[in-house]
């Protein structure tokens, strides 16, 4: 019985995110003019997957009490790169995919190295590197264009066995193969420890630097997966500044919705995935209820505000007012 309670306490943020998403998706699905169908799920999941990958990336960094404002730009850069190199024969395509993922990995490593060894604040570092990544993207694709191996693209944006959206399977695979081992490794736990209290983590001899480096590197990799999928959906590469920035900002929103503490030390990438799914569903809800699309930003903002407020209830119990600022 008590075991159950502790588990619940550990997973509260993630469970809340799942709850919010399920509730919103049910409202969406039951009011959808075409009804609940495999087709509808496929469309919805394709739209949400991109943000979900970027939100996972953001969550991993935020857990170390950092922030990565370059995730959207890494997505844009890898999208542009993929539109050049993920083409041709099966072997060429495979090498291209590796090249794209490797690029994301390197971008993340650069972020991590600067934050750790340059001792710069993550927020400034990643604004700067993000601008650089965007600059490279612009050089790769001054104008939208390029192409992608369409067989692979269609396979990864279609359905498995006619029902399961492949993009969703890919998302689950990334969570299972990257997040789960990471969060249960010594490095991953050091990342949580660093985010919770860096001084205590240092005094306890936890590998703080390795943890931060791993976090930024994984964030780069996951953003690149997002960039790859963007290419699969759009068949082209585009150095779109506004959309890159939107992905960065929405990733932070998704992370918060997903129960990850911006102060670090608490949360999970799984929660962030559901946060991203929920965030995307807000937009879709407006669509099924026939609202003017002009309402979308306002409405998204309201829902986000509400979700964040839930997390702030704890401050009402504070007995030393100085803790408000801690």
């Amino acid at each position, binding site marked *: 019985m008590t075991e159950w309670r502790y588990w619940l*306490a*550990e997973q509260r943020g993630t469970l809340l995110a799942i709850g919010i998403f399920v509730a919103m998706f049910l409202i969406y699905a039951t009011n959808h003019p075409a009804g609940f169908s495999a087709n509808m799920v496929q469309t919805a999941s394709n739209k949400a997957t991109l943000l979900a990958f970027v939100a996972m990336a953001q969550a991993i960094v935020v857990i170390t009490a950092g922030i990565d404002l370059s995730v959207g730009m890494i997505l844009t850069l890898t999208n542009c790169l993929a539109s050049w190199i993920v083409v041709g024969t099966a072997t060429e395509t495979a090498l291209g995919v590796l090249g794209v993922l490797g690029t994301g990995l390197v971008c993340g490593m650069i972020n991590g190295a600067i934050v750790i060894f340059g001792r710069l604040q993550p927020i400034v570092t990643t604004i700067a590197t993000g601008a650089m990544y965007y600059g490279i993207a612009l050089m790769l694709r001054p104008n939208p264009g390029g192409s992608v191996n369409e067989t692979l693209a269609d396979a990864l944006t279609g359905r498995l066995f006619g029902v399961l959206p492949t993009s969703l399977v890919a998302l689950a695979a990334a969570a299972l193969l990257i997040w789960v081992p990471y969060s*249960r490794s010594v490095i991953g736990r050091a990342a949580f420890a660093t985010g*919770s*209290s860096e*001084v205590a983590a240092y005094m306890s001899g936890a590998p703080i630097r390795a943890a931060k480096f791993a976090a930024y590197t994984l964030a780069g990799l996951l953003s690149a997966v997002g960039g790859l999928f963007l290419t699969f959906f759009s068949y082209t590469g585009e150095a779109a500044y506004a959309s890159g920035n939107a992905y960065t900002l929405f990733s932070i929103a998704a992370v918060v919705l997903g129960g990850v503490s911006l102060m670090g*030390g608490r949360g999970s990438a799984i929660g962030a995935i559901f946060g991203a799914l929920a965030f995307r569903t807000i937009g879709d809800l407006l669509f099924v209820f026939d609202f003017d699309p002009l309402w979308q930003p306002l409405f998204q903002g309201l829902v986000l505000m509400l979700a964040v407020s839930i997390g702030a209830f704890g401050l009402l119990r504070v007995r030393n007012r100085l803790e408000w600022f801690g």
Partner: protein
Amino acid sequence: MIAAEPLFRAEGLSKRYGGVIALDRADLTVHPGRIHAILGENGAGKSTLIKLMVGVVAPDEGRMTLGGREVAFGNPSAANDAGIVCIFQELSLIPDLSVADNIMISRPPTRLGMIDRRAQRRIAEDALERAGAGDIHPRALVKDLPLSRRQMVEIAKALSRRPKILILDEATSALTASDVTKVFEVLKRLRSEGLALLYISHRMHEIAELADDCSVFRNGRRISTFAAGTKTDAEVIELMIGREYKHAFPDKPVRRADGRPPSLQCRGLGWGNRLKDISFSLHAGEIIGLGGLDGQGQRELLLALFGVLRDISGDILIDGDKVAIDSPVAAKSERIGLALIPEDRKTEGLMLPMSVRDNLSAAAFDRFARFGIIDRQRQSALIDEMIRLIEIKTASPDLPVSALSGGNQQKVVIAKWLMNKPRIILLNDPTRGIDVGTKQEIYRLLRRLADDGAAILLYSTDYDELIGCCDRVLVMYDGAVRRELAGAEITERALVSSALNVDDSARAEASPA
């Protein structure tokens, strides 16, 4: 003295922080299978010694040997690996991780590269059991545990590392009485298993019960080592005090009762279990000192008076009237007229990159603003006057505060609050880390303010200051005022012994806390 081969030896260890000598060619010898108590006043060098031993800071000079071999630790984990483990006061636990995660933080059992949570849990349960804290659930989050339980987790964590030397730095200060009993049993068992234990505590009766050897530190040096029980409490206190220098203090005027109600009065002030039933009266023209060891509730008392803490019990009276001070804004309002000069000037007292002018203005905008707009001329006039009055040494009021010396920065903090012309001034250890010359100026300033009718409450960790500056001293222990000293009663001996919660009437056995 002791036949067995020493396990650890430190020789000629020194450490300076800026101009302050924290440790001055100190030495120490530690033997296996014994509990060695380290005694000393605030700032005697005990914590610095520990930090050097566990690799938190590196010594400026001197050497350490462990088991006959010279050692130097670059970081805490290197010291832990060598077998020296320290239990700090709740500093090393990670609030958002579970108890089991915390215990096994540095070297968890792994399987296929992942943490083996089942094995980890077994080890954690075992370690908790060994620490006498089997009732703590290994999955509980540390931040959800009360302080005394956290301390037990800290002890379990240290034990799971199988140390050769275990250092307990005030490790019992947050424990409940029943926990203390359990911890003592654990410590005695560890001693019989051949561990060396270094025990730092201010509780004399704990030392009497536990220690085999005692070492007394003073002014950064080891003054004496003796077998426990061979000296009385009074003799130990005698060893701990005794300074090399005395400050010059302004004369204390003789105060006459004028029949007016006290500027500030507390009746039965309490806050959780951190402040207990505190009552005192502070009159205009008076300087009251807050004494006692670090962290006995002095800081909380000042914060409570300044309206920072919530859910305070008891009454606060200003000029005889009951008031509710529910925020710093209310505290500094004209009717109440409080000012709090904070302890950590770098974070709470000053905005370092901003100019002296802006810093001085920060708490007193309404004195020279009209309809919300700052009257520049008035501001300049008031600021120039204040800089002259307090003798802040700055080339211009537009220099950033960070460019000033530590002493002058502290003067800016004090001046900032004087801009408001407060009637009641609370000070939190205002002279810590300040040169002697500036200290003297601050003492003179405090006395002048009191003579001009201010009521001053001064928390200080420097006994000289309490003796030289204060008309009365309240000595705090464990959140309560343990003793009030006035006039000639304020002596170093009285301050130290009441701070340690022992009777100073020269007896060997200590009173139970």
